[in-house]
């Protein structure tokens, strides 16, 4: 059985039907990517999974535990963390304090220290800038901080929303290198990206989202060679 299993969720913004019978699953140790155009419902999906939006019907199960009945903050305790779009780090707190906030739900000090070492191993830059204010970091560093902060909550699944957003191409590559490292350290990741090319390079499987429902689901390798994906999402003729 999959680690995270989403079955037929329907989400509405008022009268607008944003997600239509959406189903997907993520296995332990996978990177799964959800690609799609602007407004296809990528972020809506992540918000629903992390409990900020409530689906009108359908189920979200983590290891068989039905999550839709919990409020957003309790979903974190149950092992799912959301790295929001646009990074949203705490600008007035130091890097260290940001990371500590990430560990808010973890009361085991021993575990916190292990996680912190893990984060600093993957993002040595954060260790250097431990005492600096979050708001003074560069865009790439802020993205690192947002990912590190999420890792501190010791999640079973980590949702990454558009990590490439607003970053220079060089930085995008290095951020995705970090995503690989996070994966190598044992993290299960659901990655939402507009940049389909790079997302499919790191992921093992992918879903293509079109106007609120899954249009295609396949392995990343197959999607990379898929005619439609190449044309629509990678901009190739």
């Amino acid at each position, binding site marked *: 059985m999959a680690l995270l299993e989403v079955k037929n969720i329907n989400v509405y913004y008022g009268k607008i039907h944003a997600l239509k019978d959406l189903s997907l699953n993520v296995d332990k140790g996978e990177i799964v990517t959800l690609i799609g155009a602007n407004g296809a419902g990528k972020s809506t999906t992540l918000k629903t999974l992390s409990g900020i939006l409530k689906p009108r019907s359908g189920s979200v199960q983590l290891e068989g535990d039905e999550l839709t009945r919990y409020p*957003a*903050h309790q979903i974190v305790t149950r092992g799912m963390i959301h790295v929001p779009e646009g990074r949203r780090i705490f600008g007035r707190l130091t890097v260290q304090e940001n990371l500590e906030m*990430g560990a808010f739900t973890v009361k085991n000090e021993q575990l916190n220290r292990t996680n912190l070492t893990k984060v600093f191993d993957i993002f040595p830059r954060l260790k250097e800038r431990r005492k600096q*204010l979050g708001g003074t970091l560069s865009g790439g560093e802020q993205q690192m901080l947002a990912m590190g902060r999420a890792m501190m909550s010791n999640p079973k699944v980590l949702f990454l929303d558009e990590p490439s957003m607003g970053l220079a191409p060089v930085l995008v590559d290095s951020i995705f290198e970090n995503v690989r490292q996070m994966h190598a350290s044992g993290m299960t990741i659901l990655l939402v990206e507009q940049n389909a090319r790079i997302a499919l390079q790191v992921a093992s499987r992918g879903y293509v989202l079109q106007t609120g429902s899954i249009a295609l689901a396949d392995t990343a390798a197959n999607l990379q060679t898929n005619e439609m994906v190449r044309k629509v999402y990678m901009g190739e003729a």
Partner: protein
Amino acid sequence: MEQIRAIWRYGIKVGIIGGIVLILTALIGMIEVFTQRQIIADVVSMGHALYLAAGLFICYLAAERTTPAKPLWIISNSMFAGLTTAFFLVLLIILGRHVNLRLMFINASDLLLNNLLTFGVQGNDGLRLLLIAGMGVGLFTGLFYLLPKFLRTVILWSLAGSAFAGVLQELIRPILANNFPDVISEWLLTSDGLTLKGALSIFIFIALIVISWSIKGGGIRQGWQGLPKKQQSTWRTIGTIILLAVILIAPWRLGLFMSEVMTIVGLYVLLGLGLNIVVGYAGLLDLGYVAFFAIGAYVTALITSPEIMNLNWSFWSAIPFAIFFGILAGVLLGVPVLKMRGDYLAIATMGFGEIIRLLVLSDALRPFLGGSQGIGQIAKPQVLGFVFKGPQEIYYLIVAGCMLVIFVSWRLKDSRIGRAWKAMREDEDVAQAMGINLVSNKLLAFGTGAGFAALSGVIFGSKIGSIYPHSFNIMVSINIVCLIIFGGIGSIPGVIVGAAALIGLPELLREFAEYRFLVYGIALVVMMLIRPEGLWPEEAHKRELHEDKTNEATG
């Protein structure tokens, strides 16, 4: 010629602004009212000091901005600023001779225009004197600006110190009278101001302190840092004990009036610390905070007073009830505004404050809450026959309350709840994504803050003995928000300093009463410009506002 005009333009511009400001100050009656208080008896009144200080400040601005910064240009620019300012006042006086300004500005009295503004010289001689004085102030400021920085610092501190001593005679007088031989008091003070020799001795005294500090100060600081940790903490403990002792004997050494002022400040410290939890820690701007103060006071009144409910319980039994109802009200207010942020929250809470005031004022509820007549005969606290009657006794109650609240605030700040509040203050959505329960943490903040306000209300009610709805108007909330901002949002010592500065000083200077909110406004604007983090800021806030400096230091 072009160049010369460009250089003097700034001086004239500043002079125009200064002139307009001084005209306004004069027309709203500030100078005249302040003239009634002497700083140095029969030499300088507070009105004139204000008037001169404004002139000095204007000229200083002109001198500071002069480019190229050559002595001649600086002096001439500063003189131009002074002259322009004086010129505007001359225009006002001439206008006042031909037109009856009092139709619109009731404060534009003959005394003000033809006597006070011209330093007591009447007629056209006065006008000439005013223009010469303007230039003189400019010349003085220009020369002052050219002095080495060290001398400037010494003179500024000493001037400010003597002026402060003059303004705060009411504070100094009882201290001298109760604790020192009469000789000192006679040397320094007359019945309505400092003596000239007294002012001079204060000036020299402060100058000596500033000079010796600048010579030895660095060494002392280094010596302190060089001390081993253990010794530092011993000295700190000794310092705390001395401070406590001073706090405890203060009302008996300072007399009745000062005790009264201190109890008022203490009540605002209590209120400020409570609101500091809501606004400073959790970042929820609550403008209806006075409601919980009112609830505390009214619950006490209903329980202890023979009027209305005729329960006649003791003061002490009222405390838990008042705090309980305060917290309950805080949580009940919290529920409907949970989803609101920023401005919307401020307006909704402001409405709540008014609702409570109007409820206690209403005729419909008069049989239960006393209406506009209020409730009287509230019980005084008693312990084994000792009654907390006057301000000197109530003071201890307030100090105890403050200590309790300071302790709770301090413990909360770095607790798990405190961290949740901090995350919420920075970014609600992300806080939630980090697993922080917004609902319970917000309600907790509202409840805690309200509980502190209710405690303050209990003491307030008992202190004044009878309460009326008009004591709980919106200005109380605004005052508390102001003092928090002034002291430094989120900082415990900041609240104390803010309350002393914004509540204590105006009580000592009764002349300010009428201009209280004008002074608040100016103080807040100036504060936001020169020290936006507040007088005694919380660490994180200071860092944010001085980002560039910290970065240089760390990176």
